[in-house]
């Protein structure tokens, strides 16, 4: 059984998902006011400018919150897994999962680094690992 796939990977969000395939986390960055935003929109939510540019993000962040899911969403999601909100170094917050550690090791405020996990044959999604080096300052 396959995990849930994003509904729309073309159009506006195409650069994001292309970045995922290439192992790069991309965010929209407004050339007018410098605001970074996620999820993608055709305008900047801070200043209203049209067509914010796509740029590579650092891939660094901290855990804003998390929950170890003990009863999975469906058989495709094997519990336990750790759903998290990650505050990216550039500013935006995104949902993801923390992988590669015991669930008990995750704490609010812990530094994390992005990596990419195969979600279907031709799609990867950003997931995060605890950053042992100390991560963002």
């Amino acid at each position, binding site marked *: 059984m396959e995990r849930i796939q994003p509904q729309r990977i073309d159009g506006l969000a195409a650069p994001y998902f292309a970045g995922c395939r290439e192992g790069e986390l991309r965010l929209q960055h407004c050339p007018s006011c410098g605001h970074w935003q996620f999820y993608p929109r055709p305008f900047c939510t801070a200043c209203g400018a049209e067509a914010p540019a796509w740029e590579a993000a650092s891939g660094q962040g901290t855990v804003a919150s998390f929950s170890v899911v003990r009863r999975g969403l469906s058989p495709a999601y094997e519990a336990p897994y750790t759903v998290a909100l990650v505050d990216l170094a550039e500013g935006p917050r995104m*949902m993801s999962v923390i992988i590669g550690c015991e669930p008990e090791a995750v704490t609010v405020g812990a530094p994390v680094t992005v990596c990419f996990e195969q979600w279907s044959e031709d799609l990867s999604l950003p997931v995060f690992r605890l950053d042992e080096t100390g991560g963002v300052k």
Partner: protein
Amino acid sequence: MTLRAATALVGAYDTAVGVVPGVTPTELCAEAIRGAVADAGLALGDVDGLITCNAMAQPILYHAEAMAEYLQLFPKLCLSLATGGGTTVTALAHAAAAIQAGEVDTVVLAMADSLRSGLTRDQAMRMQSSTGHPDFEQPYGPTVPAYYALIAQAHMARYGTRPEHFARVAVDTRAHAARNETAQKRDPITVEDVLASRPIADPLRLLDCSLVSDGGSAVVLTRADRARDLARPPVYCLGFGEGHSHEHISQAHDLTASAARESGAAAFAMAGLGPTDLAFAQLYDCFTPTVLVELEDLGFCAKGEGGTYLASEGMGPGARLPVNTHGGMLSHCHPGNPGAMFALTEAVRQLRGDCGERQVAGAEAGLVHAQGGIMSSHATLVLGREV
């Protein structure tokens, strides 16, 4: 012109709740509408406004129109609304505004669903978790408890709140339900029981989560001057407020505080009352942390002190502020979107003095707070026996 005391609730009715097999949400909704109108001492023909919310177990494209047709009702205002769990109070505020504007005289608000008998467990779970962003949240497999667990965990990290604080909400709610023979779960529980129940999404355990139920409920709202001549003592709508901050939890600007601050402040200001003037509060309790955050954001305790407030004051029968005197969605019933309707009908019954064993003595004013999404849409109503 203020909405303060412009309208009153004059009819209230709950269907059987819990496990109610063999009855469709449409049938439950129709029973609730007829029951509420009869409770008010009115006839269906007196109703010129109908507001409903779609049912997950029986989605209907034009829900309110379909319900009006089902009952052969021909209203001037007919709306299906959806702000999730917040719909009850949001819809009532707009009904009150329509009445005050002279558009209609008498509005029925009715909601019903059959999450327990009309959907499989997996269907119900998928339906509810589809509130997540389809591209940027849902693929990661967050469940609805997990969304709320993110709020709980952030509150714990920021304020030192502990799982036993959340558990107290479940324990005290159950103590209320024990006094309500219509409640789905009535056996007393302890904090230890909650902490020993099955882990669902840390820090939430099974008894931190609301029920999955069938049920329907309706109320009748009319002009305050008209209300005085009807069958039941009117319960006046003294203050309404709303606040909306996000839809997806990953987009919330603040994980530990909610737009209940705005909705509560607006409702209290309109009513000319404050948190200490109320005999009870019916707070949205999809999960135990929701109640703790609402207690703070509505001003019943200081921000960050929800845990210590619950530990010292509690919210059960006899508490300084009893919360969810019918047993809430944690113990009475939770048929999805209609959940807060039962908080509203309970508030009406408390203010009529009709609650028997669980009556809050001397209840003159109370509050109903509903929220939908993941702490997304908030709506607060202050009600009173007197204008």
